Protein backbone atom coordinates (compact mmCIF):
# COMPACT_ATOMS: atom_id res chain seq x y z
CA UNK A 1 0.00 0.00 0.00
CA UNK A 2 1.40 3.36 -0.96
CA UNK A 3 0.22 5.53 1.89
CA UNK A 4 -0.90 8.86 0.52
CA UNK A 5 -3.02 10.04 3.42
CA UNK A 6 -5.11 12.63 1.61
CA UNK A 7 -6.71 10.46 -1.03
CA UNK A 8 -10.25 9.60 0.03
CA UNK A 9 -11.42 9.09 -3.60
CA UNK A 10 -9.36 5.89 -3.77
CA UNK A 11 -11.06 4.45 -0.73
CA UNK A 12 -14.55 5.57 -1.71
CA UNK A 13 -13.95 4.20 -5.19
CA UNK A 14 -13.09 0.81 -3.69
CA UNK A 15 -16.18 0.97 -1.48
CA UNK A 16 -18.37 1.79 -4.49
CA UNK A 17 -16.80 -1.05 -6.44
CA UNK A 18 -17.52 -3.53 -3.63
CA UNK A 19 -21.07 -2.23 -3.33
CA UNK A 20 -21.76 -2.57 -7.07
CA UNK A 21 -20.31 -6.08 -7.22
CA UNK A 22 -22.38 -7.09 -4.20
CA UNK A 23 -25.57 -5.64 -5.70
CA UNK A 24 -25.02 -7.44 -9.01
CA UNK A 25 -24.19 -10.75 -7.34
CA UNK A 26 -27.18 -10.57 -4.99
CA UNK A 27 -29.49 -9.79 -7.89
CA UNK A 28 -28.16 -12.61 -10.06
CA UNK A 29 -28.41 -15.13 -7.23
CA UNK A 30 -31.93 -14.09 -6.19
CA UNK A 31 -33.21 -13.76 -9.71
CA UNK A 32 -31.46 -16.49 -11.67
CA UNK A 33 -29.94 -19.07 -9.32
CA UNK A 34 -32.88 -19.32 -6.94
CA UNK A 35 -35.53 -20.20 -9.57
CA UNK A 36 -33.20 -22.84 -10.97
CA UNK A 37 -32.60 -24.30 -7.50
CA UNK A 38 -36.35 -24.22 -6.83
CA UNK A 39 -36.98 -26.52 -9.82
CA UNK A 40 -34.79 -29.27 -8.38
CA UNK A 41 -35.89 -28.70 -4.77
CA UNK A 42 -39.59 -28.98 -5.71
CA UNK A 43 -38.95 -32.04 -7.88
CA UNK A 44 -37.18 -33.81 -5.00
CA UNK A 45 -39.55 -32.56 -2.30
CA UNK A 46 -40.95 -36.04 -1.65
CA UNK A 47 -37.69 -37.86 -2.15
CA UNK A 48 -35.77 -39.50 -4.95
CA UNK A 49 -38.18 -42.43 -5.24
CA UNK A 50 -41.26 -40.30 -5.95
CA UNK A 51 -39.15 -38.19 -8.32
CA UNK A 52 -38.08 -41.22 -10.32
CA UNK A 53 -41.54 -42.81 -10.42
CA UNK A 54 -43.10 -39.56 -11.68
CA UNK A 55 -40.67 -39.66 -14.60
CA UNK A 56 -41.00 -43.43 -15.12
CA UNK A 57 -44.49 -43.10 -16.60
CA UNK A 58 -45.93 -43.62 -20.08
CA UNK A 59 -47.06 -39.97 -20.23
CA UNK A 60 -43.57 -38.74 -19.49
CA UNK A 61 -41.98 -41.11 -21.98
CA UNK A 62 -44.35 -40.17 -24.79
CA UNK A 63 -43.75 -36.47 -24.04
CA UNK A 64 -39.97 -36.99 -24.15
CA UNK A 65 -40.25 -38.97 -27.41
CA UNK A 66 -42.42 -36.29 -29.03
CA UNK A 67 -40.10 -33.49 -27.89
CA UNK A 68 -37.12 -35.30 -29.39
CA UNK A 69 -39.04 -35.97 -32.62
CA UNK A 70 -40.09 -32.33 -33.02
CA UNK A 71 -36.53 -31.10 -32.43
CA UNK A 72 -35.09 -33.78 -34.72
CA UNK A 73 -37.17 -32.40 -37.61
CA UNK A 74 -37.27 -28.67 -36.82
CA UNK A 75 -33.55 -28.21 -36.13
CA UNK A 76 -32.20 -29.76 -39.40
CA UNK A 77 -34.80 -27.82 -41.42
CA UNK A 78 -33.66 -24.53 -39.90
CA UNK A 79 -30.02 -25.57 -40.20
CA UNK A 80 -30.31 -25.98 -43.97
CA UNK A 81 -32.36 -22.80 -44.23
CA UNK A 82 -29.84 -20.88 -42.11
CA UNK A 83 -26.90 -21.92 -44.28
CA UNK A 84 -28.75 -21.11 -47.52
CA UNK A 85 -29.97 -17.74 -46.25
CA UNK A 86 -26.53 -16.83 -44.88
CA UNK A 87 -24.85 -17.76 -48.19
CA UNK A 88 -27.26 -15.56 -50.16
CA UNK A 89 -27.16 -12.60 -47.75
CA UNK A 90 -23.43 -12.63 -46.90
CA UNK A 91 -22.02 -13.38 -50.35
CA UNK A 92 -24.20 -11.48 -52.82
CA UNK A 93 -25.71 -8.05 -53.33
CA UNK A 94 -29.33 -7.94 -54.45
CA UNK A 95 -32.30 -5.58 -54.08
CA UNK A 96 -34.42 -6.22 -51.00
CA UNK A 97 -31.53 -7.68 -48.99
CA UNK A 98 -32.33 -5.59 -45.91
CA UNK A 99 -35.95 -6.68 -46.12
CA UNK A 100 -34.89 -10.33 -46.27
CA UNK A 101 -32.77 -9.83 -43.15
CA UNK A 102 -35.71 -8.28 -41.32
CA UNK A 103 -37.96 -11.15 -42.41
CA UNK A 104 -35.49 -13.70 -41.01
CA UNK A 105 -35.50 -11.88 -37.64
CA UNK A 106 -39.28 -11.56 -37.56
CA UNK A 107 -40.11 -14.75 -35.59
CA UNK A 108 -38.02 -13.46 -32.65
CA UNK A 109 -40.18 -10.38 -32.20
CA UNK A 110 -43.53 -12.13 -32.54
CA UNK A 111 -45.33 -13.46 -29.48
CA UNK A 112 -45.19 -17.29 -29.40
CA UNK A 113 -48.96 -17.31 -29.04
CA UNK A 114 -49.29 -15.44 -32.33
CA UNK A 115 -46.87 -17.92 -33.92
CA UNK A 116 -49.31 -20.67 -32.98
CA UNK A 117 -52.35 -18.58 -33.91
CA UNK A 118 -51.25 -17.95 -37.51
CA UNK A 119 -50.96 -21.70 -38.14
CA UNK A 120 -54.41 -22.31 -36.64
CA UNK A 121 -55.79 -19.64 -38.98
CA UNK A 122 -54.05 -21.27 -41.94
CA UNK A 123 -54.53 -24.99 -41.28
CA UNK A 124 -57.27 -25.16 -38.60
CA UNK A 125 -60.77 -26.47 -39.33
CA UNK A 126 -62.01 -22.88 -39.83
CA UNK A 127 -58.76 -21.74 -41.36
CA UNK A 128 -57.81 -20.71 -44.88
CA UNK A 129 -56.87 -24.19 -46.05
CA UNK A 130 -59.06 -25.97 -43.47
CA UNK A 131 -61.87 -27.13 -45.79
CA UNK A 132 -59.42 -28.53 -48.36
CA UNK A 133 -57.38 -30.35 -45.65
CA UNK A 134 -60.54 -31.80 -44.10
CA UNK A 135 -61.79 -33.12 -47.45
CA UNK A 136 -58.41 -34.80 -48.03
CA UNK A 137 -58.35 -36.14 -44.46
CA UNK A 138 -55.10 -34.38 -43.54
CA UNK A 139 -54.70 -33.25 -39.94
CA UNK A 140 -52.12 -30.57 -39.13
CA UNK A 141 -53.59 -28.61 -36.22
CA UNK A 142 -54.09 -30.63 -33.00
CA UNK A 143 -51.61 -33.13 -34.48
CA UNK A 144 -47.86 -33.63 -34.70
CA UNK A 145 -47.31 -31.69 -38.00
CA UNK A 146 -48.72 -28.57 -36.32
CA UNK A 147 -46.30 -28.95 -33.40
CA UNK A 148 -43.39 -29.26 -35.83
CA UNK A 149 -44.48 -26.24 -37.91
CA UNK A 150 -44.91 -24.03 -34.85
CA UNK A 151 -41.48 -25.11 -33.57
CA UNK A 152 -39.90 -24.45 -36.97
CA UNK A 153 -41.37 -20.95 -36.94
CA UNK A 154 -40.12 -19.91 -33.49
CA UNK A 155 -36.61 -21.34 -34.05
CA UNK A 156 -36.19 -20.15 -37.66
CA UNK A 157 -33.72 -17.27 -37.04
CA UNK A 158 -31.16 -18.99 -34.77
CA UNK A 159 -28.73 -20.52 -37.30
CA UNK A 160 -29.07 -17.77 -39.92
CA UNK A 161 -28.46 -15.01 -37.36
CA UNK A 162 -25.32 -16.71 -36.12
CA UNK A 163 -23.90 -17.26 -39.61
CA UNK A 164 -24.72 -14.02 -41.44
CA UNK A 165 -22.47 -11.61 -39.45
CA UNK A 166 -19.66 -14.19 -39.30
CA UNK A 167 -19.67 -14.88 -43.05
CA UNK A 168 -19.88 -11.17 -43.80
CA UNK A 169 -16.82 -10.58 -41.62
CA UNK A 170 -14.90 -13.50 -43.11
CA UNK A 171 -15.28 -12.38 -46.72
CA UNK A 172 -15.15 -14.68 -49.73
CA UNK A 173 -11.51 -14.62 -50.88
CA UNK A 174 -10.86 -18.25 -49.93
CA UNK A 175 -13.99 -19.41 -51.73
CA UNK A 176 -12.97 -17.46 -54.82
CA UNK A 177 -9.49 -19.00 -54.68
CA UNK A 178 -11.01 -22.50 -54.48
CA UNK A 179 -13.12 -21.76 -57.56
CA UNK A 180 -10.13 -20.43 -59.51
CA UNK A 181 -8.25 -23.62 -58.62
CA UNK A 182 -11.08 -25.62 -60.16
CA UNK A 183 -13.25 -26.70 -57.23
CA UNK A 184 -16.88 -27.36 -58.04
CA UNK A 185 -19.55 -25.42 -56.15
CA UNK A 186 -20.23 -28.20 -53.65
CA UNK A 187 -16.52 -29.00 -53.22
CA UNK A 188 -15.92 -25.34 -52.39
CA UNK A 189 -18.80 -25.39 -49.90
CA UNK A 190 -17.84 -28.58 -48.07
CA UNK A 191 -14.04 -28.10 -48.10
CA UNK A 192 -13.72 -24.33 -47.67
CA UNK A 193 -16.89 -22.70 -46.37
CA UNK A 194 -18.12 -25.35 -43.96
CA UNK A 195 -14.82 -25.66 -42.02
CA UNK A 196 -14.76 -21.86 -41.65
CA UNK A 197 -18.24 -21.68 -40.14
CA UNK A 198 -18.48 -24.99 -38.25
CA UNK A 199 -18.28 -23.60 -34.69
CA UNK A 200 -20.74 -20.83 -35.37
CA UNK A 201 -23.00 -23.43 -36.98
CA UNK A 202 -22.79 -25.63 -33.88
CA UNK A 203 -23.49 -22.60 -31.70
CA UNK A 204 -26.62 -21.75 -33.68
CA UNK A 205 -27.78 -25.38 -33.63
CA UNK A 206 -27.35 -25.56 -29.84
CA UNK A 207 -29.56 -22.52 -29.26
CA UNK A 208 -32.04 -23.64 -31.91
CA UNK A 209 -32.33 -27.05 -30.28
CA UNK A 210 -32.78 -25.66 -26.76
CA UNK A 211 -35.62 -23.45 -27.94
CA UNK A 212 -37.24 -26.20 -30.04
CA UNK A 213 -37.29 -28.60 -27.07
CA UNK A 214 -38.45 -25.96 -24.60
CA UNK A 215 -41.03 -24.07 -26.68
CA UNK A 216 -44.32 -23.68 -24.87
CA UNK A 217 -46.62 -20.88 -26.11
CA UNK A 218 -46.62 -21.66 -29.82
CA UNK A 219 -47.02 -25.42 -29.44
CA UNK A 220 -49.68 -25.07 -26.73
CA UNK A 221 -51.90 -23.19 -29.20
CA UNK A 222 -51.65 -25.85 -31.93
CA UNK A 223 -51.46 -28.91 -29.69
CA UNK A 224 -55.03 -29.52 -28.55
CA UNK A 225 -53.47 -31.25 -25.51
CA UNK A 226 -54.18 -34.84 -26.45
CA UNK A 227 -52.17 -36.69 -23.85
CA UNK A 228 -49.74 -39.22 -25.22
CA UNK A 229 -50.24 -37.89 -28.76
CA UNK A 230 -49.68 -34.14 -28.92
CA UNK A 231 -48.12 -33.21 -25.58
CA UNK A 232 -44.44 -32.29 -25.66
CA UNK A 233 -42.49 -32.01 -22.39
CA UNK A 234 -43.38 -28.34 -21.68
CA UNK A 235 -47.06 -29.16 -22.29
CA UNK A 236 -46.85 -32.22 -20.04
CA UNK A 237 -45.46 -29.91 -17.33
CA UNK A 238 -48.48 -27.63 -17.69
CA UNK A 239 -50.98 -30.52 -17.62
CA UNK A 240 -49.44 -32.04 -14.49
CA UNK A 241 -49.25 -28.63 -12.83
CA UNK A 242 -52.92 -27.93 -13.53
CA UNK A 243 -53.80 -31.35 -12.10
CA UNK A 244 -52.00 -30.34 -8.86
CA UNK A 245 -49.32 -32.98 -9.50
CA UNK A 246 -46.60 -30.50 -8.52
CA UNK A 247 -43.83 -33.03 -7.94
CA UNK A 248 -44.60 -34.60 -11.32
CA UNK A 249 -44.58 -31.21 -13.06
CA UNK A 250 -41.27 -30.24 -11.48
CA UNK A 251 -39.79 -33.67 -12.22
CA UNK A 252 -40.34 -33.18 -15.97
CA UNK A 253 -39.25 -29.54 -15.56
CA UNK A 254 -36.00 -30.71 -13.96
CA UNK A 255 -35.15 -32.63 -17.15
CA UNK A 256 -35.62 -29.49 -19.23
CA UNK A 257 -33.65 -27.46 -16.68
CA UNK A 258 -30.78 -29.93 -17.08
CA UNK A 259 -31.00 -29.48 -20.85
CA UNK A 260 -30.79 -25.71 -20.29
CA UNK A 261 -27.70 -26.11 -18.09
CA UNK A 262 -25.99 -28.39 -20.61
CA UNK A 263 -26.81 -25.90 -23.38
CA UNK A 264 -25.41 -23.00 -21.35
CA UNK A 265 -22.23 -24.95 -20.53
CA UNK A 266 -21.66 -25.97 -24.16
CA UNK A 267 -22.39 -22.46 -25.39
CA UNK A 268 -19.98 -20.94 -22.86
CA UNK A 269 -17.28 -23.49 -23.73
CA UNK A 270 -17.64 -22.56 -27.41
CA UNK A 271 -17.42 -18.85 -26.57
CA UNK A 272 -14.24 -19.36 -24.51
CA UNK A 273 -12.46 -21.60 -26.98
CA UNK A 274 -13.52 -20.35 -30.37
CA UNK A 275 -14.50 -16.74 -29.71
CA UNK A 276 -12.75 -15.52 -32.86
CA UNK A 277 -14.50 -18.16 -34.99
CA UNK A 278 -17.90 -17.05 -33.71
CA UNK A 279 -19.30 -13.76 -34.88
CA UNK A 280 -19.90 -10.85 -32.57
CA UNK A 281 -23.19 -11.99 -31.12
CA UNK A 282 -26.12 -9.76 -31.69
CA UNK A 283 -28.37 -10.71 -28.81
CA UNK A 284 -31.81 -11.83 -29.80
CA UNK A 285 -34.45 -14.14 -28.43
CA UNK A 286 -31.92 -16.77 -27.57
Amino acid at each position, binding site marked *: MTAIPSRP*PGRSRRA*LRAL*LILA*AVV*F*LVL*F*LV*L*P*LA*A*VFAEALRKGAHVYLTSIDQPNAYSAIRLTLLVAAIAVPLNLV*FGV*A*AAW*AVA*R*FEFPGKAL*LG*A*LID*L*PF*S*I*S*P*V*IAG*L*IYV*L*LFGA*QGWLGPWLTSHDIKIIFAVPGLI*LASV*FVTLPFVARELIPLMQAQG*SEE*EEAARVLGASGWQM*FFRVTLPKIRWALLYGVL*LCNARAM*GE*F*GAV*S*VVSGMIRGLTTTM*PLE*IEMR*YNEYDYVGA*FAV*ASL*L*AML*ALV*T*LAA*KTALEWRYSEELAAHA*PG*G*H
Partner: protein
Amino acid sequence: MLPGFGLSLGYALAYLGLVVLLPLAALAWKASGIGAAGLLHLLAAPRTQAALRLSFGGALLAALVNAAIGLLVAWVLVRYRFPGRRLLDALVDLPFALPTAVAGIALTALYAPNGWLGHGLAMWGIKVAYTRLGIGIAMVFVGFPFVVRTVQPVLAALDRDMEEAAESLGAHREQTFMRVILPMLAPALLTGFALALARAVGEYGSVIFIAGNIPMRSEIAPLLIVQQLEEFDYAGAAALGVVMLCFSFALLIALSLLQRWSRRWAEFAT
Protein backbone atom coordinates in the same frame (compact mmCIF):
# COMPACT_ATOMS: atom_id res chain seq x y z
CA MET B 1 -18.26 -14.86 -59.27
CA LEU B 2 -19.32 -17.34 -56.60
CA PRO B 3 -21.86 -20.04 -57.39
CA GLY B 4 -25.13 -20.85 -55.68
CA PHE B 5 -26.85 -17.46 -55.68
CA GLY B 6 -30.02 -18.64 -57.36
CA LEU B 7 -30.22 -21.86 -55.36
CA SER B 8 -29.57 -20.35 -51.91
CA LEU B 9 -31.74 -17.28 -52.38
CA GLY B 10 -34.52 -19.27 -54.04
CA TYR B 11 -34.53 -21.84 -51.26
CA ALA B 12 -34.46 -19.19 -48.52
CA LEU B 13 -37.30 -17.24 -50.11
CA ALA B 14 -39.46 -20.32 -50.71
CA TYR B 15 -38.90 -21.46 -47.12
CA LEU B 16 -39.68 -18.03 -45.65
CA GLY B 17 -42.73 -17.79 -47.88
CA LEU B 18 -44.13 -21.10 -46.69
CA VAL B 19 -43.19 -20.87 -43.00
CA VAL B 20 -43.61 -17.13 -42.32
CA LEU B 21 -45.45 -15.23 -45.06
CA LEU B 22 -48.25 -17.68 -45.90
CA PRO B 23 -49.40 -18.05 -42.24
CA LEU B 24 -49.16 -14.27 -41.74
CA ALA B 25 -51.34 -13.82 -44.84
CA ALA B 26 -53.89 -16.16 -43.24
CA LEU B 27 -53.91 -13.90 -40.16
CA ALA B 28 -54.45 -10.81 -42.30
CA TRP B 29 -57.23 -12.62 -44.19
CA LYS B 30 -59.06 -13.63 -41.02
CA ALA B 31 -58.66 -10.22 -39.39
CA SER B 32 -59.87 -8.39 -42.49
CA GLY B 33 -63.01 -10.55 -42.40
CA ILE B 34 -64.36 -8.58 -39.45
CA GLY B 35 -63.71 -5.16 -41.01
CA ALA B 36 -62.46 -1.94 -39.45
CA ALA B 37 -65.68 -1.32 -37.49
CA GLY B 38 -65.63 -4.83 -36.09
CA LEU B 39 -61.98 -4.46 -35.16
CA LEU B 40 -62.63 -1.21 -33.29
CA HIS B 41 -65.61 -2.76 -31.55
CA LEU B 42 -63.48 -5.70 -30.36
CA LEU B 43 -60.69 -3.43 -29.20
CA ALA B 44 -63.14 -1.25 -27.29
CA ALA B 45 -64.25 -4.20 -25.17
CA PRO B 46 -63.18 -3.53 -21.55
CA ARG B 47 -61.60 -6.97 -21.17
CA THR B 48 -59.46 -6.49 -24.31
CA GLN B 49 -58.40 -3.02 -23.21
CA ALA B 50 -57.50 -4.23 -19.73
CA ALA B 51 -55.40 -7.07 -21.18
CA LEU B 52 -53.60 -4.78 -23.64
CA ARG B 53 -52.93 -2.18 -20.93
CA LEU B 54 -51.53 -4.86 -18.65
CA SER B 55 -49.30 -6.42 -21.32
CA PHE B 56 -47.92 -3.12 -22.63
CA GLY B 57 -47.72 -1.35 -19.26
CA GLY B 58 -46.15 -4.31 -17.51
CA ALA B 59 -43.66 -4.87 -20.33
CA LEU B 60 -42.69 -1.18 -20.30
CA LEU B 61 -42.02 -1.23 -16.55
CA ALA B 62 -40.15 -4.53 -16.78
CA ALA B 63 -37.98 -3.19 -19.62
CA LEU B 64 -37.16 -0.07 -17.58
CA VAL B 65 -36.15 -2.22 -14.59
CA ASN B 66 -34.07 -4.37 -16.93
CA ALA B 67 -32.36 -1.30 -18.41
CA ALA B 68 -31.23 -0.22 -14.92
CA ILE B 69 -30.23 -3.63 -13.60
CA GLY B 70 -28.79 -4.72 -16.95
CA LEU B 71 -26.55 -1.65 -17.00
CA LEU B 72 -25.37 -2.40 -13.45
CA VAL B 73 -24.62 -6.06 -14.22
CA ALA B 74 -22.88 -5.23 -17.52
CA TRP B 75 -20.77 -2.60 -15.72
CA VAL B 76 -19.73 -5.01 -12.96
CA LEU B 77 -18.93 -7.82 -15.43
CA VAL B 78 -16.85 -5.60 -17.75
CA ARG B 79 -15.10 -3.21 -15.38
CA TYR B 80 -14.37 -5.33 -12.29
CA ARG B 81 -12.39 -8.52 -11.75
CA PHE B 82 -13.59 -10.76 -8.93
CA PRO B 83 -13.77 -14.51 -8.27
CA GLY B 84 -16.76 -16.16 -9.95
CA ARG B 85 -17.10 -13.44 -12.58
CA ARG B 86 -16.96 -15.80 -15.56
CA LEU B 87 -19.56 -18.09 -13.98
CA LEU B 88 -21.92 -15.18 -13.40
CA ASP B 89 -21.30 -14.00 -16.95
CA ALA B 90 -22.34 -17.40 -18.31
CA LEU B 91 -25.37 -17.45 -16.00
CA VAL B 92 -26.77 -14.23 -17.48
CA ASP B 93 -28.12 -16.20 -20.45
CA LEU B 94 -30.10 -18.59 -18.24
CA PRO B 95 -33.47 -16.94 -19.02
CA PHE B 96 -32.79 -17.57 -22.74
CA ALA B 97 -31.91 -21.22 -22.15
CA LEU B 98 -34.53 -22.15 -19.56
CA PRO B 99 -37.87 -23.12 -21.18
CA THR B 100 -40.57 -20.59 -20.32
CA ALA B 101 -42.91 -23.14 -18.76
CA VAL B 102 -40.11 -24.22 -16.40
CA ALA B 103 -39.35 -20.61 -15.50
CA GLY B 104 -43.07 -20.01 -14.96
CA ILE B 105 -43.65 -22.79 -12.44
CA ALA B 106 -40.29 -22.15 -10.74
CA LEU B 107 -41.05 -18.46 -10.19
CA THR B 108 -44.53 -19.34 -8.95
CA ALA B 109 -43.13 -21.85 -6.43
CA LEU B 110 -40.56 -19.30 -5.29
CA TYR B 111 -42.99 -16.41 -4.78
CA ALA B 112 -46.06 -18.36 -3.61
CA PRO B 113 -47.07 -17.49 0.00
CA ASN B 114 -45.31 -20.66 1.21
CA GLY B 115 -42.33 -20.31 -1.16
CA TRP B 116 -38.71 -19.46 -0.30
CA LEU B 117 -39.12 -15.78 -1.16
CA GLY B 118 -42.90 -15.47 -0.97
CA HIS B 119 -42.93 -16.49 2.68
CA GLY B 120 -40.61 -13.68 3.74
CA LEU B 121 -42.33 -11.14 1.51
CA ALA B 122 -45.75 -12.13 2.90
CA MET B 123 -44.56 -11.16 6.38
CA TRP B 124 -43.96 -7.67 5.00
CA GLY B 125 -47.44 -7.72 3.53
CA ILE B 126 -46.18 -8.06 -0.05
CA LYS B 127 -48.03 -10.51 -2.28
CA VAL B 128 -46.24 -11.47 -5.50
CA ALA B 129 -47.68 -14.72 -6.85
CA TYR B 130 -51.10 -14.39 -8.53
CA THR B 131 -50.81 -10.57 -8.67
CA ARG B 132 -49.61 -8.03 -11.22
CA LEU B 133 -46.33 -7.78 -9.34
CA GLY B 134 -45.77 -11.45 -10.17
CA ILE B 135 -46.40 -10.72 -13.86
CA GLY B 136 -43.80 -7.95 -13.67
CA ILE B 137 -41.24 -10.26 -12.07
CA ALA B 138 -41.73 -12.90 -14.76
CA MET B 139 -41.37 -10.20 -17.45
CA VAL B 140 -38.14 -8.93 -15.88
CA PHE B 141 -36.84 -12.51 -15.77
CA VAL B 142 -37.39 -13.29 -19.47
CA GLY B 143 -36.05 -9.94 -20.67
CA PHE B 144 -33.06 -9.73 -18.37
CA PRO B 145 -30.23 -10.93 -20.71
CA PHE B 146 -31.00 -8.45 -23.51
CA VAL B 147 -29.70 -5.23 -21.92
CA VAL B 148 -26.63 -6.95 -20.42
CA ARG B 149 -25.72 -8.51 -23.77
CA THR B 150 -26.20 -5.33 -25.81
CA VAL B 151 -24.36 -3.02 -23.37
CA GLN B 152 -21.49 -5.40 -22.50
CA PRO B 153 -19.56 -5.35 -25.82
CA VAL B 154 -19.95 -1.57 -26.23
CA LEU B 155 -18.74 -0.95 -22.68
CA ALA B 156 -15.77 -3.28 -23.21
CA ALA B 157 -14.77 -1.48 -26.42
CA LEU B 158 -15.20 1.99 -24.91
CA ASP B 159 -12.15 4.17 -25.19
CA ARG B 160 -10.89 4.84 -21.65
CA ASP B 161 -9.00 7.92 -22.87
CA MET B 162 -12.17 9.99 -22.83
CA GLU B 163 -12.90 9.09 -19.22
CA GLU B 164 -9.33 9.84 -18.20
CA ALA B 165 -9.48 13.11 -20.11
CA ALA B 166 -12.69 14.06 -18.31
CA GLU B 167 -11.20 13.20 -14.94
CA SER B 168 -7.94 15.00 -15.58
CA LEU B 169 -10.00 18.05 -16.51
CA GLY B 170 -11.50 17.86 -13.04
CA ALA B 171 -14.80 16.05 -13.64
CA HIS B 172 -16.25 14.12 -10.70
CA ARG B 173 -16.93 10.43 -11.05
CA GLU B 174 -20.66 11.09 -11.30
CA GLN B 175 -20.09 13.75 -13.95
CA THR B 176 -17.82 11.44 -15.95
CA PHE B 177 -20.44 8.71 -15.82
CA MET B 178 -23.44 10.87 -16.67
CA ARG B 179 -21.80 13.09 -19.29
CA VAL B 180 -19.20 10.84 -20.90
CA ILE B 181 -19.97 7.15 -20.39
CA LEU B 182 -23.78 7.11 -20.39
CA PRO B 183 -24.15 9.06 -23.68
CA MET B 184 -21.77 6.63 -25.39
CA LEU B 185 -23.77 3.66 -24.09
CA ALA B 186 -27.14 5.21 -24.96
CA PRO B 187 -27.75 3.47 -28.32
CA ALA B 188 -26.86 0.03 -26.91
CA LEU B 189 -28.93 0.65 -23.80
CA LEU B 190 -31.94 1.69 -25.90
CA THR B 191 -31.53 -1.34 -28.17
CA GLY B 192 -31.48 -3.68 -25.17
CA PHE B 193 -34.49 -1.88 -23.73
CA ALA B 194 -36.46 -2.31 -26.97
CA LEU B 195 -35.55 -6.00 -27.23
CA ALA B 196 -36.57 -6.63 -23.61
CA LEU B 197 -39.81 -4.72 -24.22
CA ALA B 198 -40.65 -6.75 -27.34
CA ARG B 199 -39.99 -10.00 -25.50
CA ALA B 200 -42.06 -9.06 -22.42
CA VAL B 201 -45.08 -7.83 -24.43
CA GLY B 202 -45.52 -11.17 -26.16
CA GLU B 203 -44.38 -13.39 -23.29
CA TYR B 204 -46.76 -16.20 -22.39
CA GLY B 205 -45.26 -19.30 -20.76
CA SER B 206 -43.40 -17.77 -17.84
CA VAL B 207 -46.22 -15.33 -17.04
CA ILE B 208 -49.39 -17.40 -17.03
CA PHE B 209 -48.45 -19.60 -14.09
CA ILE B 210 -47.65 -16.72 -11.74
CA ALA B 211 -50.34 -14.34 -13.05
CA GLY B 212 -53.53 -15.70 -11.52
CA ASN B 213 -55.23 -14.89 -14.84
CA ILE B 214 -58.27 -13.04 -13.48
CA PRO B 215 -60.09 -11.26 -16.35
CA MET B 216 -59.81 -7.46 -16.15
CA ARG B 217 -57.11 -7.70 -13.47
CA SER B 218 -54.30 -10.09 -14.22
CA GLU B 219 -55.02 -11.41 -17.71
CA ILE B 220 -52.30 -10.67 -20.29
CA ALA B 221 -53.10 -10.12 -23.99
CA PRO B 222 -51.51 -13.38 -25.27
CA LEU B 223 -53.64 -15.34 -22.77
CA LEU B 224 -56.75 -13.55 -24.02
CA ILE B 225 -55.87 -14.72 -27.56
CA VAL B 226 -55.56 -18.31 -26.31
CA GLN B 227 -58.94 -18.07 -24.55
CA GLN B 228 -60.63 -16.63 -27.64
CA LEU B 229 -59.23 -19.55 -29.63
CA GLU B 230 -60.57 -22.00 -27.07
CA GLU B 231 -64.01 -20.40 -27.45
CA PHE B 232 -63.62 -20.68 -31.26
CA ASP B 233 -63.71 -16.87 -31.55
CA TYR B 234 -61.19 -16.94 -34.40
CA ALA B 235 -61.97 -13.42 -35.63
CA GLY B 236 -61.46 -11.94 -32.17
CA ALA B 237 -58.19 -13.80 -31.72
CA ALA B 238 -57.03 -12.66 -35.17
CA ALA B 239 -57.92 -9.03 -34.43
CA LEU B 240 -55.99 -9.00 -31.17
CA GLY B 241 -53.14 -10.81 -32.93
CA VAL B 242 -52.97 -8.10 -35.60
CA VAL B 243 -52.79 -5.36 -32.96
CA MET B 244 -49.90 -7.08 -31.19
CA LEU B 245 -48.20 -7.80 -34.50
CA CYS B 246 -48.39 -4.13 -35.53
CA PHE B 247 -46.63 -3.24 -32.29
CA SER B 248 -43.93 -5.83 -33.03
CA PHE B 249 -43.42 -4.37 -36.52
CA ALA B 250 -43.17 -0.85 -35.11
CA LEU B 251 -40.56 -2.01 -32.60
CA LEU B 252 -38.62 -3.83 -35.33
CA ILE B 253 -38.47 -0.64 -37.42
CA ALA B 254 -37.41 1.34 -34.35
CA LEU B 255 -34.71 -1.24 -33.67
CA SER B 256 -33.27 -1.09 -37.18
CA LEU B 257 -33.16 2.72 -36.95
CA LEU B 258 -31.44 2.36 -33.57
CA GLN B 259 -28.86 0.05 -35.09
CA ARG B 260 -28.10 2.54 -37.86
CA TRP B 261 -27.77 5.26 -35.22
CA SER B 262 -25.50 3.22 -32.99
CA ARG B 263 -23.24 2.34 -35.94
CA ARG B 264 -22.80 6.04 -36.72
CA TRP B 265 -22.34 6.69 -33.00
CA ALA B 266 -19.62 4.04 -32.78
CA GLU B 267 -17.77 5.58 -35.73
CA PHE B 268 -17.99 8.95 -34.05
CA ALA B 269 -16.87 7.68 -30.63
CA THR B 270 -13.77 5.85 -31.85
